[in-house]
């Protein structure tokens, strides 16, 4: 059994009277990709900032690399690669200088930084913007630069707070590929995302947070098995003609009525469809699919997917 890289017990964060993170427990093993899911305001970023040793812990215990963020903040931060939710780039510097100065904050030798910058600009596809100021870059370019910058110190642990928000599909796949390679090299990744497909693809293990608490924990597959069924039948009805739940009773294990569609959770979609045919319902369209993390998310955090 290896020592956990990050270990939190009863971890709590208050902002004044407001409780942003409410006594959570989790631990992250070396080499694993660990995810935080949850609706807006759940406390994901607040947790990430405590792990990143930039936001003091209000209560509970937290260790990162076996160190206490309160005592050994600089030592912890020196081994982290942080991609914050909001791009905190230095707008008074150019693309190159942002990478260079950031590397200098880690006290890396200048020639080493220069070598790494060439490779990172390549990865971020920003080689042509090397000497441009950061401010006029597009949102996605800033995001790519922020991600590239987080790699300058060759971190052991990366904290990625919604890394792919605002990226085009190509850039997103390039990032996934990079993250996969980092994982191969033994880098541990902690990631938050609102994209369930991303969480399903990337995360070995994840927790779902809601209102400052952890409401579920497990691998994507485990969570789907535990909180959803094997298959889902999605029904659409004409506007205003969505039937009451009583009309659908007995068709599936669980029924979820969303604003735009109704979901039937079932282990046997074929049987549910047959049963459905026998009821006189004004169905507009029917889709059968396998259950995903999104279904887990909906179930655990109360129906609406907030994004």
């Amino acid at each position, binding site marked *: 059994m290896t020592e956990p890289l990050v270990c939190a017990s009863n971890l709590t964060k208050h902002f004044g009277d407001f409780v942003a993170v409410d006594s959570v427990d989790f631990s992250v093993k070396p080499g694993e990709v660990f995810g935080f899911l949850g609706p807006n305001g759940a406390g994901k970023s607040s947790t990430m900032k405590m792990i990143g040793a930039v936001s003091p812990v209000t209560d509970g215990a937290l260790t990162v690399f076996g160190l206490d963020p309160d005592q050994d903040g*600089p030592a912890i*931060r*020196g081994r982290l690669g942080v991609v914050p939710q909001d791009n905190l780039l230095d*707008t008074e510097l150019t693309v190159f200088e942002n990478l260079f100065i950031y590397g200098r904050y880690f006290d890396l030798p200048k020639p080493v930084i220069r070598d790494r910058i060439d490779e990172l600009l390549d990865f971020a596809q920003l080689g042509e913007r090397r000497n441009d100021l950061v401010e006029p870059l597009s949102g996605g370019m800033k995001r790519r630069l922020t991600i590239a910058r987080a790699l300058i110190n060759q971190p052991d642990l990366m904290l990625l707070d919604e890394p792919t928000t605002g990226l085009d599909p190509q850039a997103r796949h390039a990032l996934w590929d990079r993250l996969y390679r980092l994982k191969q090299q033994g880098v541990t990744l902690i990631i938050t995302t609102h994209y369930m497909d991303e969480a399903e693809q990337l995360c070995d293990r994840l927790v779902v947070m809601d209102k400052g608490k952890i409401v579920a924990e497990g691998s994507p597959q485990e969570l789907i098995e535990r909180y959803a069924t094997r298959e889902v039948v999605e029904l659409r009805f004409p506007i205003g003609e969505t039937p009451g739940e009583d009309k659908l009773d007995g068709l599936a294990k669980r029924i979820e009525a969303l604003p735009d569609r109704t979901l039937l959770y079932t282990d046997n979609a074929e049987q549910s469809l047959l049963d459905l045919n026998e009821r006189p319902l004004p169905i507009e369209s029917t889709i059968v699919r396998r259950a995903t993390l999104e279904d887990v998310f909906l179930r655990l955090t109360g129906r609406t997917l907030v994004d």
Partner: protein
Amino acid sequence: MLVVERHARVYRRTWRGSVISTFANPILYLLAMGLGLGSLVDQGGGSVQLDHDYLTWLAPGLLAAATMMTATGESLYPVMAGMKWNKYYSDALSTPVSTHDLVVGHFGWLTLRVLFTAVVFSGVMVTFGSIGFSRVLLVIPPSVLAGLAFAGPVTAYAARLEKETGLSAVFRFVITPLFLFSGIFFPIEQLPDWMEPIAYATPLWHGVELTRASALGIETALHPAVHIAVMVAFLAVGAAIANRLFHKRLVV
């Protein structure tokens, strides 16, 4: 000290405007006040009372004022930028850099900027003939200290500033009155008696006294150690408060 490198990088892009004003300001002031106004003062018997011609007497005071201006400006806008506009402070804090490093970097860079202003200004004084080569190096330490005495409290003030209007207020309500009434243009003995103690309480008067005494080779009003101690106290207390405020505002 790594933070100083960052400031130097930013300056590399914006230096032109600031270098021009660093040279232009002393030339304009020495021309208008020293030569223009000075010829009147000297004809009216001022130079007898001051023991020197007006330009020679005035220039060291203007030097101390120039470092005060530079230090104040550099403590207001860049700090506000780091806290609010650009947020590069929070950015740096995700690395091993601490708020203490940010404060040290700020004062380190500021000292270089103030030193640059002092060197340029005293160079202009030499070309105006208001100071000789033998004394010019002596005026640099006291004038730099005068600037730093302002940098301390002004940085602390900027560290907790929320609104931009608070920036120009410093110049309007603090810097301009001090500039006029700290013994730069006339000895503070000319002021009404009740105003004199106020001058004693401000760092600029101490800076002017010390710089002028070094330039002219005359006695200071108080013991030099007192002048130095007052300015060091302003710097030290201001910097300590700034250090606390940086931590309080940035580490949440």
